[in-house]
Each structure stands twice: as C-alpha cells, then as structure tokens.
C-alpha cells in the first residue's frame, strides 16, 4: 500500500516540531496482557501436576515439575518471539492453548502413575517432549510466514499436499493400523505419526484459496426452490469431490471421525464463502446418506452405531469391540459428579486408552462437571477468538482461513467429546491440545501460530482514528 510520508501538521503534533523526529515508544499492552495471562496459565499447570502428585503419590516429586517448567520456558520463548515479530497478535490464544496443553500433560501424568510407567515409557514425558517440538514448530511458522497472504499463492500446492498426506497411510510398508483405523504412518517400530492431522491445515488453506477464487459461480446462479437458491447441477463438482474423498477415508482408512472433520470443514467454508444455506443442507444430506449406507454395509461403522444406540445392553457391553469402553467412560464421568474426585484420586485408568481418546472422561472424573465446563469454556474462548479474527479481517482469504482453522478445532472437540458423552457415535479423533499424541499437538500449535499471525495482520493495517 503506497503511503505518503509528508510531515504531519496535525494540531496535536504541532508543538514538538523542531525538526527532529522522535520515535514514539508504544507500550505493548496486548503483549503485557498476554504475559500476565501466561504466568497464570503456567501457574495453573504447575498446580495441576502438584495436585496429581499429592493425590496419587502423597508427596511432591520434582521430576515432572522440572519437565513442566521446560514447557513453560518454551511458551515464554514464543511470547518473546511474538513481542518482536507479531506485536499486535491476539493476547488470549497463547495462554488458552498453554493451559489446555498443560492440563492434558497433568492428566496423562496421572494415568502414568496409575499404570506405574516412568522414563521414556511414560506417556507424559513423551507428551512434554512433543509439546516442546510443537511449540518450536509454531515459533518457526510465526517466523517464516510474515503475512498470511503468502499462503494464498500456494493454494493448489496446499491442496495437493493435503490429499497426499491423507493417502500416505495407505502406502504399503509405511502405513500402520492402530485399533482398526489405518491413519498412521511409522518408520520401524517407533515414531508413529498421523499425517491426517497436518492435512487438515493444508486442506483449510486449500479450501480458503479455492473458494475465494471460484465462489462467484457457486453462489450467483441456480434455481430458487423452497425459498432457497439451489446450485446448478454442474456446480456440484467440488462438493462431490470432497464428499468422495471423505467417503474413501471411511471405506479405506476406516476412520469415521476424520471423514466427518474434513467434510464439515469444507461445508462450513463453502457456506461462509457463498452465504447460501442450500449448500449446508445439500452437504448434510450427502454425508448423512453416505454414513447411513456405510453403517449398513461396513461392519465397523455398524458396530459403532450399535455401541452408541444400545450402549447399556449387557450383550453389547460384553461383546468384543463392544461398548465396554464407552460405558466405562460414562461411569467415570458419573463418579466425578459436580466437583470431581480430585486430581489423582479417581480411577480413570479403568477405561481403556484413558490418556488419548478418553482424556475428557478422565478429566471429567477427576475435575467433575465444573472442571469439564471450564475446559469447554476454554475451547469456546479459543474458537471465538478465531472467529473474531476472521470477522475483523479485511481480505476474504484471511477471513475464510481464520474461521476455517478455528472451526476445525471446534468440530474436532464436538466429534470427540460428543462421542465420549454419547451424543453422537464414538469415532477416534484426538481432543485438541489435551489428548496424548504428537501429530495432533503439532497440528494444533501450528493452527495457533497461524491464528496469531492472522490477528497480527488484521490489527497492523494502516489505520486512521477519528
């Protein structure tokens, strides 16, 4: 943007005009607020670990406190980087992500204590290391991407990378199958990674860029029917392609949650770009139809539906791959009650995989309804900040990207927590920031970095205050 830099003759600046230009020192109010909130968040994280140790061990052990401190150090490092390269970034996103991540580590540590695991076998230690790696990735993204519009240039590259990452687990020799779903890749027996988590960022970038370029034909024409303008048949191409992609994820990777996540993301971004409800109705009808057919023909989908609808039936409960896990999670949540059993004092380890898919049930048991609602409020605030960034943004690509990225977090929370609390059929997805799993952490911290970058660009535009 061309700027004229004539000397100002504004009445307020008239006094100190003695030929010398003084640089204004602006206090970084936003960053100071962020620092204040970060200190509290790190304090709460430390408190959670100490409470776990007091509750489960009855003494305070310094090992994980030290590890937790290193995580805090990295987060403060990110804060300092923001002071230099993104001064106007949103001050709430980083503290909220830190608190969620730390709460997750405390809970995973609590389950490690129950399973008597320590050192590298301990999931909490690995989670802490992954968190460090994820925050390092976020810092790198903030440093490398100085303007989100750079991503617009790589729209189709992002789409290609996204689809490639999705297909990676299907490559023989590289893909790994964990509890039925083929969404992992691994090298040898260690270092497993879920490329689909990174794919969701690439796809969000692709959808945003694609829709900004092509939305006119998707929103302008079509027949009016039932008070809504429906698209022409030949404009259905994109939605059918994404639908086919998600259906193939259901069939070949046997992962219902991931498919729902991608399709939901596309649908919401399509709605944002065109403002037409008919797309949402059309998409939901397509997905529900596909899911119903899958539940009739695919055995594993059918099993998920049975577990969901008939969970408390003893036959389903005792069946192999039955609703045992789901019901144990519900028992845990019920045991927690209003204020929970207290950190380190419940029995969350009775549920299978309490540290990843079922971490919400574990947290619900030990922190109770009050704690679960606090965590949901944190997610709500995080997603609301993302929507806000999208709303305040000036360029359409930034708007779509901001809302798309935060909606991914919201939808993922809904799919996982809805599954655990028996609102929808259970599907294996990670709870953002909380659940044990490196790829999910890396992806979500990259989302945090992108949202911070977007918010900085939004506030940094030339501005005139009247």
């Amino acid at each position, binding site marked *: 943007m061309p700027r004229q830099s004539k000397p100002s003759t504004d009445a307020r600046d008239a006094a100190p005009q003695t030929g010398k230009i003084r640089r204004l020192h602006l206090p970084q*109010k*936003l960053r100071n607020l962020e620092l204040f909130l970060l200190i509290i968040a790190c304090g*709460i994280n430390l408190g959670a670990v100490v409470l776990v140790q007091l509750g489960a061990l009855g003494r305070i052990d310094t090992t994980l406190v030290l590890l937790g401190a290193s995580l805090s150090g990295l987060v403060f490092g990110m804060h300092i980087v923001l002071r230099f390269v993104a001064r106007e970034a949103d001050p709430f996103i980083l503290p909220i992500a830190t608190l969620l991540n730390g709460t997750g580590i405390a809970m995973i540590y609590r389950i490690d204590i129950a399973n008597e695991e320590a050192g590298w076998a301990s999931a909490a230690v690995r989670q802490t290391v992954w968190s460090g790696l994820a925050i390092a990735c976020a810092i790198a993204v903030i440093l490398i991407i100085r303007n989100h519009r750079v991503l617009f240039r790589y729209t189709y590259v992002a789409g290609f990378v996204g689809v490639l990452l999705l297909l990676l687990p299907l490559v023989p020799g590289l893909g790994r199958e964990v509890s039925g779903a083929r969404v992992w890749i691994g090298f040898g027996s260690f270092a497993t990674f879920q490329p689909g988590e990174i794919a969701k960022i690439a796809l969000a970038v692709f959808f945003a860029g694609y829709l900004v370029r092509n939305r006119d034909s998707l929103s302008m024409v079509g027949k009016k029917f039932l008070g809504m303008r429906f698209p022409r048949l030949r404009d259905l191409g994109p939605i059918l392609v994404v639908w086919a992609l998600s259906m193939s994820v259901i069939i070949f990777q046997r992962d219902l949650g991931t498919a729902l996540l991608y399709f939901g993301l596309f649908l919401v971004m399509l709605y944002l770009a065109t403002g037409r409800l008919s797309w949402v109705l059309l998409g939901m009808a397509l997905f529900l139809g596909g899911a119903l057919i899958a539940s009739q023909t695919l055995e594993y989908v059918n099993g998920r539906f049975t577990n969901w609808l008939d969970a408390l039936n003893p036959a389903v409960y005792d069946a192999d791959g039955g609703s045992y896990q789901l019901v144990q999670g519900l028992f845990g949540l019920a045991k927690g009650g209003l204020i929970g059993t*207290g950190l380190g004092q419940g029995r969350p380890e009775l549920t299978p995989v309490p540290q990843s898919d079922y971490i919400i049930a574990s947290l619900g048991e030990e922190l109770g309804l009050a704690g679960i609602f606090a965590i949901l409020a944190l997610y709500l605030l995080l997603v609301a900040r993302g929507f806000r960034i999208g709303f*305040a943004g000036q360029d359409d690509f930034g708007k779509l990207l901001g809302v798309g990225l935060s909606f991914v977090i919201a939808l993922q929370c809904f799919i996982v927590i809805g599954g655990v609390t028996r609102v929808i059929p259970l599907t294996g997805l990670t709870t953002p920031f909380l659940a044990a799993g490196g790829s999910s952490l890396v992806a979500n911290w990259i989302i945090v970095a992108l949202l911070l970058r977007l918010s900085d660009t939004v506030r940094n535009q*030339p501005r*005139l205050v009247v």
Partner: protein
Amino acid sequence: MNPSELTLLVLRLAFLLVLWLFIFGIVYALRSDLFGQRVRKMSTDAPAAAAVPFATPPPAPVPAGAFTQPSAASASAPTEQFSRQKAAPLPPAGPEKATTQTATRLVITSGTKAGTEFPLGSEPITIGRSSDSSLVIRDDYTSTHHARLMLWHEDWMVQDLDSTNGTFLDGKRVAVPTSVPLNTTVKIGATSFELRR
C-alpha cells in the same frame, strides 16, 4: 509428607476456583468485544475543529476535545502517515466511478478530523468504532462494525454492515453495496469523507 483429606479437598476446590477465575479474567478482558468500544466523551470546546483550514464546515458542531486512545492497537499507526491536506482545489464533481486507478486517497471532509487523508490501496477498508477497523470513528452515531469499502473487481463499493444509524452516499441511505463515484460524500455518523484522485 502425607496430606490430609481436608488439605486435598481445599486444594482441589482452590484449583477449580483458579481455573474459573482465569476464564472470567479472559472474558473480562474481552468485554469490549461483547459490549462494543467505549464511546468517546463529547465536550464543547473545539480547538482542533477551529484549526481546520478547509472550506467545508462540519454540518454539526462536533468537537474534538478529549482525544483518547483506549487500546494499544489503535495507537499502533503513527499519525505521521496521515497527512493533512492543505487547500486542495476541489476537482469538479462528476459521476466518474472510483476505481483502484482513479482513486488514490480517502479524504475526511467533515467531523473532528476534517482534512485528514488516508491512502487507498487495493485492499478493502473497514469502518467502525472497533479498534480493529481501518478507519476508526469513535462517536455516538457509529456502530462497532459500521460499513466497509470493498473492491468489486476494480471499483470501490460501499457496503453498510447493518449499522444502527446508516451509511449515506450523497444523502441517500445505502441499502445494498453501491459503487462510489469520485468526489461524492459518504456520511457515517458525524463524519463524512470522499474518495479522491
């Protein structure tokens, strides 16, 4: 050291309390999002308005006292970038459309900052009371997100974002996105501006 039941109970209640205090702290800090930006105090003395070397007088006596910058974000753009224009000859008004080629600046013609200009690039401009707008107008008549100037291909269009008091293009209230001709007054609250070459 083995903590008693009571200690653990107190600690766990305190933990939940601190967790919720953190959340309410964030919500408190976000209150301007929920209730809108604070309205600037209107006082009667008008030193800046008197100093305006501009032919068009403000239609309402809008004073320019008590200029406050409530957030760091609004202070980020140094005022040097927005130079005040001195005695610019008004080009003859015509129905010529404002495009990225023809319009280079946005000039405030009435209000507290009459005469100030703002460079136009090829990016949309948001107007409103919120501090994340590109043109922040803090008076009683402006909505938080009031209007925006956007580009339809090359042409500048003004779109009202459901504001309470409306956006007026050449005296007529803007209902749908309308293209803005050059040198035509767009009025928002007590402030009006034109797009000029």
